[in-house]
């Protein structure tokens, strides 16, 4: 070690320390400012929302339990009818699940095509990649309810509008997730297939799909969970299934709360059931990949 280094060392530590302290202080300031902005946004946002709501937050807070309690007490009083009521609504439940399943299936296929056409290195027409990406962005951005309501006007109520609406959104959402997976796919099998003279679709089916299938299925299952919820909600605006029955039962008010209770139970059970099944299966799929 040289004298020069020894001589300059204390000063070096000082500068390092002071510049570190300055940095820490600046970071604290920025962090504090961000936090302050966030708190102000939250508080003022809450106040605006509270003002524009029909009932106030503090007035309504103690009433949260009232409605569930009413429904549950009435359902409990008529608990003898409950199994029969649940059976009565099973067809509606099947319809809700069917809407979710078909739209996941169709949307998944659409997303598959969109993702393959919109991924660099895989696309059939590389120049059109931005086009397919924008298409899937727009399909993803349209909330299901928009398409569902328009289709209900044209096609009449029933499961088909909901199915189409959810399928369109699913295709866009899965298209994006699928293409993120496909970007990481190994291109060697594709090149190998290309050297044998395979067509584009053969290259995709035999070269890419086997690599990405576990991830694709896992994403599709996650979408299926989401779509069950969406299909119940769309039923509420007139697209058939359990949501529609729930709205009717609620419109009747007291006296028919046992029906609302039965539908609550069915919906809750279904969502929890499919969540559990799909998360178990998804875990197996992603674990199997590591081996």
């Amino acid at each position, binding site marked *: 070690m040289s004298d020069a280094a020894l001589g300059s060392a204390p000063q070096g530590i000082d500068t390092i320390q002071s510049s570190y302290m300055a940095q820490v202080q600046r970071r604290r300031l920025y962090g504090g400012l961000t936090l302050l902005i966030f708190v102000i946004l939250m508080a003022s946002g809450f106040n605006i*929302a509270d003002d524009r709501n*029909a009932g106030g937050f503090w007035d309504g*807070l103690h009433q949260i339990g009232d*409605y569930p309690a009413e429904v549950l007490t009435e359902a409990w009083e008529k608990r003898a009818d409950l199994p029969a009521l649940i059976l009565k609504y099973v067809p509606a439940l099947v319809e809700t699940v069917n809407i979710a399943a078909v739209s996941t299936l169709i949307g998944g296929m659409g997303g598959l095509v969109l993702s393959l056409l919109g991924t660099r290195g895989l696309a059939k027409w590389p120049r059109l990649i931005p086009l397919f990406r924008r298409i899937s962005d727009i399909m993803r951005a349209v909330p299901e309810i928009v398409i569902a309501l328009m289709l209900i006007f044209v096609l009449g109520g029933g499961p088909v509008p909901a199915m189409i609406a959810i399928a369109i959104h699913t295709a866009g959402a899965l298209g994006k997730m699928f293409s993120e997976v496909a970007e990481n796919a190994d291109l060697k099998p594709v090149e190998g297939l290309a050297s044998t003279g395979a067509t584009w679709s053969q290259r995709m089916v035999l070269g890419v799909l086997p690599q990405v299938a576990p991830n694709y299925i896992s994403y599709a299952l996650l979408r299926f969970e989401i779509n069950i919820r969406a299909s119940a909600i769309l039923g509420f605006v007139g697209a058939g299934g359990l949501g529609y029955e729930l709205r009717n039962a609620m419109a009747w008010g007291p006296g028919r709360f046992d029906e609302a209770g039965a539908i609550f139970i069915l919906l809750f059970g279904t*969502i929890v059931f499919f969540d559990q099944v799909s998360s178990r299966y998804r875990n197996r799929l992603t674990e199997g990949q590591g081996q």
Partner: protein
Amino acid sequence: MTTADLTLTKQEADTLFRRKRLMAFGIPGVVTLYLAYIFFAFDLPGLAQRANLDNAITLASDSWSHKVHVTRDNRSGDITYAVEGERKGTYPDGQRPAWVSGDEVITIALGGEHVVRYLPDNRTEIEIPGLPLIDVQAEGRKLTSNLPQDLPDWISASSRRISITTPEGRITLTGARTEVFNYFPGWELFWFTLDSPYHGQSLGTILFGDRIDPARGNIPGAVSDWWNNAMWRHKDVVWAIGETILMAFLGTMGAALIALPLAFLAAKRFSPIMLLRAATRRLFDFVRGVDALIWTVVLARAFGPGPLTGALAILITDTGTFGKIFSEALENVDQKQIEGVSSTGAKPLQRYRFGVIPQVVPVLLAQILYFLESNTRSATIIGAITGGGIGLMLTQAIQTQKDWEEVAYYIMLIIAMVMFMDWVSGWLRGKMIGRKD
């Protein structure tokens, strides 16, 4: 390798191939069968009958055009001119569209040599190329006309009501009133309603021209008239979009704030009590399972319709989702960093702050920002149910079944809003945790 080994391997390969072949044909087969079942379960053959193509045509043509109604009240003889037939779009007294002329006899030129004349004494003459002059007399509740027996399918006539639909416009006659709809492309009155002095002025005149309304400056006056436009309700629309984004923001951030401490309780590493852990997890599963739909219904009873209800519904559902994701992230943290912090004598709270939080923050922020975007869409839907935000305006416009140009406008705004939130969340993610690529 012995022969026995080879046969065994060959057998294995054969079973594998058989299974592959079965899968290759089986899965598409099952999917086809299922779709066939759905085809009948959803009654797709019957859909063709239920579908109303007229509605589709109205929807498609109305969304990019507007119509001006010329209505004669057959009792009083008054004639009104109104855009979309709405009171808010009525022409002020003494004003009328340029394609209407005459005083005693009102002549309405629909274009393409289609002319309708309102004659005195509730008589109406309709001139359509290729048809003889149609003459209709309204008397009380009855209509007498010179229409022949066999009519083309775009004319329907009875003694009570005659309706003629041409590419140039539509004419409806009943005993009580005679109405002509003239169609034009574009969204009329989008900027200013007819009662505003700025209606029909060019942008240059408003910006640089002389003062149009003596009481106000041009630019503030024009902005305020546009903002308070009664037809398109720009003020309400902006507020509604704000409400929808507010619902998503409050719901997502509130859920994240509540879920974070709860996630510590649910993570094995930080919560040694099994019972507490299990209880927290079941709580997450429960609020997630009940779903936003039911929460919305329940909360709307307590708080009434409005953005707060929607925000709380999103908050409660997402608390469950975030709780699950956060606790999984917390279980995967690296122990070494926590040990390092505790070796400096940090207290438990400090250990969490400096040992755990920095590790999980990127994961958490990424999830929160992703949900912020996705919740904007949910907030639109929840708003339609609970009555708040742009979702409500959209459903209302669709339910009236006539303001399709407003529906088209709202849909474009909703898509723009979601894409904007997508961009914001991507931008924030890039700023806060760095880009992936």
